[in-house]
Structures are given as C-alpha cells and as structure tokens.
C-alpha cells in the first residue's frame, strides 16, 4: 500500500454542510450571534486569530476541561500519597536519617509533582480528545481562512439547518461568499 493511499484512507473527510465567509471581524461576530439566535446549534466558527466575544456570540458554554484537571490532579495527589507509602513503608522499608518509614514532609514534593503531572497531561489529553485531534488532511473551506477571512460552517445535520434561510441570513449580515462545502 502506497503512502498516498494510506493518507487517503485515514484522512478526515469532515461532514457536509454550508459555509459563509466574511471579510470583517465585527460583522462576523454579529453574524455568529444572529445564527445562534435563528435557532441553529452546533455550528463552527473559523478565524485566523482569537476573537474577543465569539464564545458568547456563538453561545458556547464554558469548557469542562477544568473539571478534568481538578479530578486528575486529585487522582495524582492520592496516587502519590499511596505510592510513596507503598514503596517506602511496605514494599521496601528502609530507615533513612532515623525518620519514620513514611515521613510525609519528605514525600510532599513527589505528591506535588504527581498532582501537577496528572492534572497537566489529562488536560492536554482531554483537549486533544474533544477537538477530535489529530486530523489528517482535513477538508479546507477556503485557504484565506488562515490569513484574513472568517467563516461560519453549519453541518447539514445541525439543529436548525435550512440552507435557504442560512443563505439569506449570511448575506444580510455581510458575508462576501456562501458555499456548500465539507469541514
């Protein structure tokens, strides 16, 4: 099997949908707000840079990743406590400096680092998972979206999808281009 056919096989095909493209960021944020207000749910915004207020305009709730970090951190903390106890007081007890087998002050750094390690790696893992990464050769709506233009993409199966209504809404709110595409 050649490398190209392999890439073809594992590449991300995206989903069918409808996109509008804007030149102006303020119009774009407004358009996102109107799209949400029109009852569309589960659409995407693509921008070359972070936009203030886009989360709120699209009605994106706060991410649940902080909870992943919190509970993974707690897990790391508990694991660190258990593991230092097991290694130094159960599995291979050695008296060091005449201190008790399981001397908490000596193990706080280990527990602290494991808390951070578990919390950090789980956050990154959760981020990768909910973004559906890695994506191999995902479909591109328009190359200019990585330099100076902005797009809204509504998948066909999104709630409230109505191509005619979306065309009107996008054009009225300043879209310079609308098209059927995959993303």
């Amino acid at each position, binding site marked *: 099997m050649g490398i190209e056919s392999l890439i073809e096989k594992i590449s991300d095909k995206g989903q069918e949908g409808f996109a509008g493209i804007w030149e102006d960021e303020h119009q774009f944020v407004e358009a996102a707000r109107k799209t949400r207000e029109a009852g569309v749910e589960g659409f995407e915004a693509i921008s070359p840079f972070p936009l203030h207020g886009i989360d709120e305009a699209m009605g994106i709730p*706060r991410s649940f990743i902080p909870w992943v970090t919190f509970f993974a951190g707690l897990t790391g903390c508990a694991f660190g406590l258990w593991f230092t106890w097991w290694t130094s007081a159960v599995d291979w007890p050695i008296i060091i400096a005449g201190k008790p087998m399981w001397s908490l*002050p*000596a193990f706080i750094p280990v527990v602290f680092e494991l808390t951070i390690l578990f919390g950090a790696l789980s956050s990154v893992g959760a981020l990768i998972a909910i973004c559906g990464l890695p994506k191999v050769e995902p479909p591109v709506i328009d190359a200019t979206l990585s330099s100076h233009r902005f797009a809204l993409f509504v998948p066909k199966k999104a709630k409230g999808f109505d191509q005619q209504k979306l065309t009107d809404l996008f054009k009225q709110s300043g879209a310079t281009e609308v098209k059927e595409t995959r993303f």
Partner: protein
Amino acid sequence: MSASTHATRSAPQPLVVSSRLKTISMVFAFLGLASFVALLFMNKERAWHAYLTGYFYFTSLALGGMFFAAIQHLSKAGWSVNIRRLSESMASFLPVAFVGGVILLIGAPTLYLWLDKGAVAADHLLQHKSGYLNMTFFVIRLVAFFGIWIFFWNKIIGLSVKQDETGEEKITSKLTAFSVAFAPFFAITYSFFSIDLLMSLEPHWFSTMFGVYAFAGLFQSTLAFLVLLVIYCMKKGVLTGYVDENHLHDLGKFLFAFTVFWAYIAYSQFMLIWYANLPEETVFFIHRMHGGWLWVSASLIVFKFIVPFLALLPQRAKRNPNHLASVAVLILIMQYVDFYWLVYPNLDSHHVVFSIFEVLVWLGFGGAFLMTTFRFLSKNAIIPRKDPRQAESNHHHVVY
C-alpha cells in the same frame, strides 16, 4: 462584548471619605494606643511583642502597596492602571512606619536577647553573631531601609501623582526606570528588615529562606487588602466604568497564585530544616510543633493555604465581589496569625498567650494605616488621570 465595559465614565475624582470611616479609624488608633500603654504597665514584654506584631504587619502592607505599583510600572502593565492608585495609597503609611520603627527601638532591649549584654557574654554563638546583631548596626540598618523606601516612595508615587496634572508621557518611562531600580533594593532591604525584626527574636536560629517567607506573606496580604479596597470603592460607585469584574478576576488570580507561593515557600523552609535536623535550626519549629502552638501552626496550613486555595479555584469565585472579599478577609486574618506565630513563641514557647489586648494593639496600627491610606485617597484622584496606558485598563477583558 460585555455590557459593563460600555458603562459611562465620569472624570476620576478624589474619594469622599465618610466621616464614619474617619471616626472608626481614629477610634481604632486610639484604642490601640490606649491598650498598648495599658499593657506596658501590666506586662512590658507582652506589650512590645504585641507592638512588633502589629507594626510589622502594617509596615509590610505599606511596602506591599508600593511593590505592587512598582511591578506594574516595570512590567509596563496596562490592565492595572485603574487600580494602581489604590495600591499606591497603601504606601502612605511609610512615614508613620518610620516613626513606629524609632519607637520600636525603645522596646528592642525587651524583645531581643542579643541586646542583653549578660546573655551575649555567656553565649559563644551570640558573640559570634554580634558583628551583625548589635544596637548600632541595627539602628543604622533601620534608618537606611526607611531612607531607601521613602526615597522610592517619593519617586514612584510622587511621579505617578504628578502625571495626573501634567500628563507627560516621559513620566511613565521615568516610573519604569525607578521601579526597575526599586525591585532589587526592595528584595534586599525587606529581607534584612524581616531578619532584623523577626528572625533575630530567636538569635540562635537562622533560616536562609526567612526573607522570602516574609515576602510571600507580604504580597499575599497586600493583594488581599487591595482586593478589599477595590471592592469597597466599586460598591461606593466611584470606579464605575473604570474597574469591573475583569479587574477583580485578575486580582483574584494574583491572590490565588501568591497563596500557592506562600505555601510553597513555607513548606520549603520547613522541609529543609526538618530534613537536615540541625539543632540550631530545628529550635524554631520545635517550639511551634508542641502544645498549643501546634494548633496555631496547623491553622496556618489549613486557613492560609488549603481553604483559600479551594475557595479561589473556580472562575466564578474570582469574579464575584462578595466571595472574593470574604476570602481576602480570611487571608488578612491569617496574615495576623502568621506574624503572631512568628513573634509570640518568643514570649512564651509553651503556651499560646492571646487576649483582646493583642487584637486591640493590632487594630491600633490598622487604624493609623486606614487613616493615612484614606487621607491619600481623599487628596488624589482614585484613578490615575492621564496615564498613557489607561485605555487598556478601561477595556480590560479576561476571557479565561
């Protein structure tokens, strides 16, 4: 974006301080003075320990206010311009602190064992340290510290106030330069100030981390006081259009970070001494790990770190003024407990000695601190008037 950033802004004015607040701070100051004098007659040693605790607490807050302003200048921060004047106001306690330091010299022989000639003559270690720990050098250092602090206070706060009138942009770069110069001076002077006044209470003991431990508490409590000051002014409506929950959010993050920093430093100091287990180092913790002092030590871990840590963790906690204010109050109380824990075992290493007198003497310094702080705020606009970075602060928006 959020509607609050579009609120109307009126020109920044000095704060109109209510007569009630003025009366309360004067009553505090008077009660403190009266209790101190009463204590002097009842128990001289205890009076000076109470004095040192309150004195160090509020001198640290004053320096902390100046330090906060300085790091905003040296990092060229824009977000904090609208709250900077409030931190500057805290530093106006410094001249009073100098007078308080001179008064402390009267009590020094009562507080410090190394000033007792008989004790030094009988103790090899104290003789060894007498090159540093002696009255003359102590006075020279104290005067030098305040000389340096008051010089920078004149520059860093004086120039900032001057810019309100002239609006010169050159002042902003001068402020950056003075703040950069202040940073190392502050690090050195405050470390030695804490070594002289607090660490030398136990002259046999030494800890290479004591300076940074004192600094960690200083900055944590400074941020807590600043949070309260900002929320107080917000509730009075004088910061409308300039300061909103976005500024609180960043102050809350600062408070959270330095709560963790304090715990990190406190633990590091303890762990190094515990691990090495050298008698002249462990003496400090042995007093604080037995009897009632054990509970005071435990309360520091729980209420100066664990509770504020969890209480400041959620995003909403940092954007909610009432919640943030209650955490700030807890931290300010625990900062008192921290200094009490540093000072009082020197008075009685076996029993926890505490009564209303300790609280009143501390309140006395608090009253003087509030008087100087609000006097400054009633004389100057509570928001810098012509800072070139002000627009950045007016539109401050925290997204995460």
